[in-house]
């Protein structure tokens, strides 16, 4: 069953479309990797799922639903009940995402209390259990620690503990390791994948790390300038990319010694608010761009299972269709 469904979701800030008509779905127990260069709308689209887009941002969609409940039309209060319990999110910078004025224990217990309730003793025991679960040594003493007493890796573990406190069915992780030391990154990813398997959560993993996505994701969404240019099962997308952008990303992979390719495959940068080109947004950087591309924006082709947004999707040999 589909856990989260987005159909033609857009997020606009005034005239600027930070997220432009994207559609994807996440099933129970599925890992969805979202990749794309900086500014491609990965964070904004996830925040819109959490209901965290502030004024002046506006979210519109033909359908934004979680477990068949329409998130956009439900009352604010009901939505807040789902956020933090059924859908949880962890953020990029663990050192700034915990409130500096409150202890670790307080912040975990607060999440538990908000959604599940219970008396002090039970809550405390559950918080300790969670700290254990995310691999924090000596959890008893960590309960009373303040965020500034923790390292980045520890903070991220605490944030994960808070996010999974109410057994979410879906966890969105927005570049959960970008701010951490390389040695810690793998540990955090292992922890996330372990938890995902153990609890059979849906996991949306936003990252710049293509190699990681290839390793852990069931499905992939590739974003560019607010749009989904390609999506599909991970093995298909990685073996036979159908969009020139994906192809370029993958081409850059083996060259990086560490296997952690940053997404700088094509010359140029993602167009921002003021320099979006006419026609296909990739056309200034696309090696296959034609005049047609520069004037007419391509539609999404295919189904939700396997979509590609290009006039001339690539064939199995990686050549543009005639």
């Amino acid at each position: 069953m589909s856990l989260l469904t987005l159909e033609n979701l857009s997020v606009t800030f005034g005239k600027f479309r930070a997220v432009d008509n994207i559609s994807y779905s996440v099933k129970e127990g599925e890992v969805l990797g979202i990749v794309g260069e900086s500014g491609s709308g990965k964070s904004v689209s996830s925040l819109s799922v959490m209901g965290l887009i502030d004024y002046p941002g506006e979210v519109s969609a033909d359908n934004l639903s979680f477990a068949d409940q329409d998130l956009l039309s439900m009352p604010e209060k009901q939505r807040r009940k789902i956020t933090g319990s059924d859908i949880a999110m962890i953020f990029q910078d663990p050192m700034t995402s915990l409130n500096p004025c409150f202890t670790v224990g307080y912040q975990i217990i607060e999440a538990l209390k908000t959604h599940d309730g219970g008396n002090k003793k039970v809550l405390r025991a559950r918080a300790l259990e969670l700290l254990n679960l995310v691999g924090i040594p000596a959890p008893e003493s960590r309960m009373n620690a303040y965020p500034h007493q923790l390292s980045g890796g520890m903070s991220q573990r605490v944030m994960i503990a808070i996010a999974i406190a109410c057994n979410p069915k879906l966890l969105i992780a927005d570049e959960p390791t970008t701010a951490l030391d390389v040695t810690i990154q793998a540990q955090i990813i292992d922890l996330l994948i372990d938890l995902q398997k153990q609890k059979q959560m849906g996991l949306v993993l936003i990252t710049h790390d293509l190699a990681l996505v290839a390793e852990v994701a069931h499905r992939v969404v590739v974003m560019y300038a607010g749009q989904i240019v390609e999506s599909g099962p991970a093995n298909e997308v990685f073996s036979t990319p159908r969009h020139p952008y994906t192809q370029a990303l993958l081409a850059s992979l083996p060259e990086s010694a560490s296997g952690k390719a940053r997404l700088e495959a094509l010359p140029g940068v993602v167009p921002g608010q003021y320099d979006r080109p006419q026609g296909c947004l990739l056309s200034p950087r696309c090696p296959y761009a034609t005049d047609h591309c520069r004037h007419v924006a391509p539609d999404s082709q295919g189904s939700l299972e396997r979509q590609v947004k290009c006039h001339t999707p690539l064939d199995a040999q990686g050549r543009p269709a005639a």
Partner: protein
Amino acid sequence: MLSFVLRRLLQAVLVLLTISFASFMIQGKLGDPVRQMVGTSVSVEQREALRDELGLNDPTLVQYGRFLGQALQGDLGTSYYYKESTLTVIANRLPATLELSFCALVLVIVMATPLGVFAAINPKNWLSRSILLFSTLGLSIPIFIVAVFLMYFFAIEWRLLPSFGRGDTTQVLGLWQSGLFNKDGLMHLLLPSVSLAFVMTPIFIRLIRAEMIDVLQSDYIRFAWSKGISAPRIYFIHALKNTMLPVITVGGIQTGTLIAYTILTESIFQWPGMGFLFMDAVTRVDAPLISAYLIVVGLIFVVTNTLVDVVYGLVNPRVRIPGYSA
């Protein structure tokens, strides 16, 4: 924490030394103590002798050293006008000023916090805009206009409140003349403390609003929202505590502004406090009293700021508890 306290103490000593030197120099420039002590009938030679005796012909630094030594023993000189120890004169007026400042401060906190928070939470609301407009205007309205305005309506037109003096006082703990414990005293306190609060509130509204807006955009507030916590909890528990930290610090610095405003307020309402005393001392060129006032005020300033730092340290876990080091 210990080095923090030591550093703070050293700073305090330096500030006090500077103030004491400044007030010593002012005292030296204001009038001639010998003239104050003896009439014009005394001959020039006799005066010179008296000057020698008083040490007024010694090098400045020696005189300052003596001044400092006496100050450390609690002797800040004798007022020309009251013919009494300046410290005693000031101490008698201290309760009036402290009570006025205290009440004004309470009013400021009670008004500025909800207004500042409201304006930060609802930036588009017309009420928020009015609050902001009021605080902008309030910043530029001089206190005497506020005071005279209030006095005119409440004391003269409507005869609701007394316009000057402190009213009845009660003796508290044997040495403190307080106006807080009887109706007459409180009535007298109302207009001056409201005027004083009125000019201090806008600064704090703006400060709290600005800090709160900053805090509300922080990562930890976004994460708190993502936990599904209720809005009041986010605003008043998660955000407010972080907002108040910088506000406490600025509050300490604003002590100086508050002291300056007490001088004006007390003069307008003839409030028998230190500020009023100071104005009198200036008119009478009562040099020892002026310099004693400056030193006492400096002391108050330093003490409040140190207290504020300590409170800040107690509230802020990042100061209280050493952090993680990689």
